[in-house]
Structures are given as C-alpha cells and as structure tokens.
C-alpha cells in the first residue's frame, strides 16, 4: 500500500513538471500563425515555420499552399493574416482589399526568384535572344519574333536535330502567368507545348530528352538540365546567377512577397512580428539560398526592417 502511494506521488510530480514546463519557458510570443497562398513559396514557408518554432516553442505555422491567387481572397475575408504570393498583387486584388478594409495590405519582399529556360545537359545551345524565346514558345509572337522557330536547325544547332519539344507549366499557375507576361508579351503559347503540373516535372521531362526545351522555376534546376543565358534587345547577356537575379537584371527574375493584413498605425502582433523578423534575418535569408532561391540585397532587408519598426540588429 505504502509503496503504491509513493509511486503515485512520484507520477504526480512528473505530471506537474510536464504541465508547468511550457509556462516556465513561455515568452510573450504564443499562438498559431495561419498562412494561405503560393505553392512556390510553400517549402520556404514551412522551413521558416520550423525555425520559428525553434526560436519560440509556443508558435506554430499552419500553411495552406493552394496558389498565389488564393491569398488575396483569404486576406480579405480575414481567414488569414499572412498571404505568401509569388507575384505582386494585381490592382484589382489590391482594390478589393482596400474597399473591404479601408487600408491597403502591407507587402513584404521575402526573396527573389527567377524563371529559367532549360535544355538537356548535352544540348550545345548556350543562350537565346528574348525574341527567339518568344518565337519558340509563342504562336502569336507579340515580342517581335518574325519567324516561328520550330526546329533546332533554325537555332544553328546540328545535334540534336528535328523539332523542338516544348515543355512548360499548366495554365493558371503563377509560373505560367509570369512567363507569358515577360517572355511572350502576353501572347498565346504554342498549342504543341506539354503542360506539366509542376516545375520539377518540367525539369524531369527536359532532362529526359535532348530535343526538349522548357521553362521552370530556378529553384528546381537539377544536374540533368542547363539553364540558358538570355540576351535582351540591347545585346546584354544575362546568366541566371544569384547576383543577376538579386539585382533584378536577369529578364525573368521576380520578387516573392508576403502580404500582411495590418491596419495603419498598429504594431505587428507578437507571432507575426517574430515571423517577419526571422524572414528578414540572416538566418532566414540563408534558408532562402539553401532552397535554391536568391536572398534579398542587404539594403532592401534593412529598409524593410526599418519600415516595419523591427530591431536593426538581429
């Protein structure tokens, strides 16, 4: 009898310890962060979420990655306060938000990214002029390509020979939209273009065939494919190097955003503040590089930290 009582008391002690532990470790940053938006940013957001939980054990990030287009409606309806987007909000989306809340959403640049035009690793093609990209991928050639390019010979290449096999993302994805805007001047894609449900699938398809050419997110590059140098109208050649992408010189570079619903004049609530602090910190930007994106320039990071009233020294 006596022994059993002792055991029970010991268990009670352990239980108390377990229950009070979070209290002892608690800081002011507790809660669940909900985010709805881009699937391009999904991997990055999840990694940041893990790091946030390491820093502040009381915070969890819940992510719903259903595409950039899903962020503005969710922010407007108030189901989330964080909207990661792989493009800037359109005027219509911003207008809807302002109409609903009476103030604009806060946009935070979180990383840079780029689309790359890729070919098989054995393909000798080095680079393309932007008009050639248009002539290859578009039926309407809005960017000024005179003649459609459908065969490798027309690019001055002997091997591979035969027609180009085109690969790209599915209609309605952000990558598709950006490529169509920048590389096709909003023209129509060629009908004979294989649409894949993800950038990784595009890269895999191109890596499997020497005649293939495709476009994909830069962070999905593998050893099986080679990213092409792009040459603009003035004859400047740009490789999709981190430095070129960071400065925005590379013609198909883009900025990835995190949109916040924050009334003007108010400070960021604890969990959101911790999250943004993490993203703009050297640690957060290191994660950006690790996942194949490009970190923001130091000046941009500092400007944004000041604007949001975050500590300058991380």
């Amino acid at each position, binding site marked *: 009898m006596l022994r059993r009582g002792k055991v029970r008391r010991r268990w009670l002690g352990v239980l108390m310890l377990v229950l009070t532990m979070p209290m002892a470790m608690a800081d002011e940053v507790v809660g669940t962060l909900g985010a709805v938006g881009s699937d391009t940013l999904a991997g990055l957001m999840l990694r940041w979420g893990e790091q946030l939980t390491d820093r502040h054990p009381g915070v969890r990030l819940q992510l719903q990655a259903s595409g950039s287009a899903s962020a503005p409606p969710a922010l407007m309806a108030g189901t989330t306060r964080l909207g990661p987007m792989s493009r800037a909000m359109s005027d219509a989306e911003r207008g809807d938000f302002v109409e609903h809340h009476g103030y604009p959403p806060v946009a935070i640049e979180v990383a840079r990214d780029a689309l790359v035009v890729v070919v098989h690793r054995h393909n000798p093609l080095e680079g393309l002029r932007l008009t050639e990209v248009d002539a290859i991928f578009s039926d309407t050639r809005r960017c000024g390509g005179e003649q459609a390019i459908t065969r490798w010979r027309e690019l001055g290449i002997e091997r591979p020979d035969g027609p180009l096999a085109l690969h790209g993302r599915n209609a309605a994805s952000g990558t598709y939209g950006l490529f169509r805007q920048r590389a096709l001047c909003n*023209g129509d894609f060629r009908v004979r273009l294989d649409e894949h449900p993800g950038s990784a699938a595009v890269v895999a398809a191109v890596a499997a065939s020497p005649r293939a050419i495709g476009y994909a997110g830069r962070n999905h590059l593998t050893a099986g494919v080679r990213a092409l140098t792009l040459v603009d109208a003035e004859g400047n050649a740009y490789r999709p190097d981190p430095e070129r992408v960071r400065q925005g010189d590379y013609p198909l570079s883009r900025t990835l955003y995190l949109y916040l619903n924050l009334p003007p004049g108010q400070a960021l609530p604890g969990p959101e503040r911790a999250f943004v602090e993490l993203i703009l910190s050297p640690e957060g930007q290191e994660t950006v590089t690790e996942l194949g994106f490009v970190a923001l320039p130091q000046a941009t990071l500092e400007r944004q930290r000041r604007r949001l009233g975050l500590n300058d020294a991380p």
Partner: protein
Amino acid sequence: MSDPSPSLHLRQRLRRGRDRLATALITAGGIGVVAALLAIGVFLVVEVLPLFWPAPADTGADVSWQALWLPQSYEGYDAPQHRWQPTVTSAEERPQYGMTPLVWGTLKAAAWALVIAVPLALGAAIHSALFMSRRLRSRIKPTLELMEALPGVVIGFIAGLVLAPWVERHLAGALAMVVLLPPGVLIAGWGWTRLPAPLRRGLPLGWAGLWLIPWLLVLVTAALALAPWLEAGWFGGDLRGWLETRLGLEYASRNAVIVGLAMGFAVMPSIYALAEDALSGVPASLAEGAQALGATRWQTLWQVMLPAASPGVFSAVMIGAGRAVGETMIVLMASGNAALMTLSPFDGMRSMAASIAIELPEAALGGTHYRLLLLAALALFVFTFLVNTLAEVVRVRLRRRYRRLGGAP
C-alpha cells in the same frame, strides 16, 4: 396455454427490434448513396447553368454554346482556331474557351487505351476461362484482379517518367517489338502443334502462360538487337526523321500510344475480370453438347461460347471505356496535356479530367473558367453514368439468359 416466459418474450422483441434497426440502416444507406449521386448531379447542373441561362449577357459570362465548340477567330491568327487557353495575363486579352480539343483528347486517350486493352484482356479472358489449367488459373486470376488496385498515379508516374523517355530513346526497338511479338507467339503455337506427342504432353496447353515467358523474352531481346539494323535498312538510320518526312508525324515523347499503354494496363484488369466471369459462366452443357456433335475447340469457342457470353463481353468493354474516359492521373502525367486535335498516335492530348485536376484549384470560384471546368465534369459524370448503366442492364439480361439455358445462376 400459459404465457411464454417473460425473458423469452423480451428476447424475441429485442431481436425483432434489432432486425428492424438493421433494415432501417441498410435502407438509409441505400437511399443515402442514391441521394449523394443525385446531389452531385444537381450541384454540377446548378453550377454550370449560369453559363447559359439566364441569357449570358446578364451574368457577365463571356461564352456562348457555339463559342465553346466551334473554331473561333482570335487576334493574331489567319484562320479560326480551336484553342483552350482559359487564363489571361493582361486586361486586353480574352480567354480562349474552345472545349472541343478537350473532348477530343478525352476520347482519343480512351480509344487508344481500349485498342490496347481490349484484345489483350479478351484474349486473356478466353484463354483463362477455356484453356488454362485450373491450378494456374486460380493463381493468375486473383493476381490480375489485384492489378486493378494499383493506383493510377503510380501507373501514370511510371508511364510519364520511365516508359515515355525509354520509348523515345528506343523507338525502333519498341516498334520492332510491336511487329515481332504477335507473329512470334503465333509461330510458337504452330510449333507446338508440330511437336511430337510426348514432348507436347510435357508442355500442356493449360500451362502455356508459363512456358511462353522464356520465348517472349527471346523475342524481346531479338527485337531490341535487330532494331538498329531495321532502322538503318528501312528507315535511313533515323526512324523519327523518317516518320516526319515520309508520314508528316512529329514524335512527342508523351503521346497517345504511351497513354494507351498505361491506361490500357489500368483498365485491362476490369475488362478481363468481367469477360472471364461471363465466359466461365456459360453453362458447361453448351460446350459439351457442341463438342459431342463434333465441333473442334475453336468452333466451340467462336460459334457457341462467345455468342452466348457476348453481352457480358460487351458490358466488360463498356465498363473499361467508362474507366478510361474518367481516368485522371495517368492522362495527366503521360499525355503531355497539350490541347491538340490531331489523329496522329504520336501526338499528345489534353483530357477533360486532367484539365479539371490541374486547373480547378486555381480557377476563381464562380468564374467562367470554373463553370466550364464543372461543365466538363458534368459531361464526364453523364457519360460514365450512361455507360455504366448500359453495361449493368446488359449484364442483367445475360444472367437471365444463362438461367434460361439451364446453367448456374
């Protein structure tokens, strides 16, 4: 008479109550399924209706029934086009909602799947129902039926990322296989009839499924070994170039034949299972009667068994067609999803089911694009519903016929 003991009475009432409860639950379940099915149909109709009624102008929808199906003239083209490009990236553009290519792609993919699956599945069903040894059949049949449980996404993945690139690299070899395998198997059959009787007993017909495997391997190896010679001799060393210059066919690595192979593999088990059931359900008295009258095995098969089982075989093919039309993941991963409208077996296509899968998550709720995708869903729903109903009706007829012929129910 004295009253039955109260406990017995109670137990009886309890049992009856439980009975009623079970009946009620089962009825509710049945009604629930039918209601859910109806609800899906009603939901689709309600979501699709605003496209056409009230008048399109009132709802802001920018399509008409004709615009969906007939070629339209778009800016930048000489002739009217069928185009599916449902999203725009600037305000001046107008989305292109030609749905004919999607319907075409769906039917083309299903047709190729059936072209590949039906002969193989029916051949397998006939062999296993009539000729195969009972022991082998008891192994093969469950295995084939288990194949049906293989998820479409796995088949699609293998087709898109392994099979398609392999066939692209070994095009001549793949073609040589198609040319060599059927005659090779026929030669094996002919050789078998010429074997001396004791040897033939060692290789019984019922086990052909096993002893043909080494022969098939030999044929495959021969096809791959001969392919370079074949390509050099007949096609000028470049089969792809030959296809292009002579026949005008461009070879896309994800094409109708690849989809047909993968989806044929997926629908084969269900066609096989249903056709096998129909064939082995033919009353034994019929076949025995025919053979007693002097018919050969071949005559019995073609003149007695197949005609008797034909409704079952038909419904098996129908069920296969229904599955092929609705199959999503295989087409999504192996067809290339280019909205082409060509007859070429070496071109890709875009099916309605695959379009729904990749575009619906990104389509604005309640927009024209969203409603059009649901229109495609409605079309698929109606089609599979009709096909399955037809298949079921035919099957019920067949069962009745067997009963009349005096076989097992």
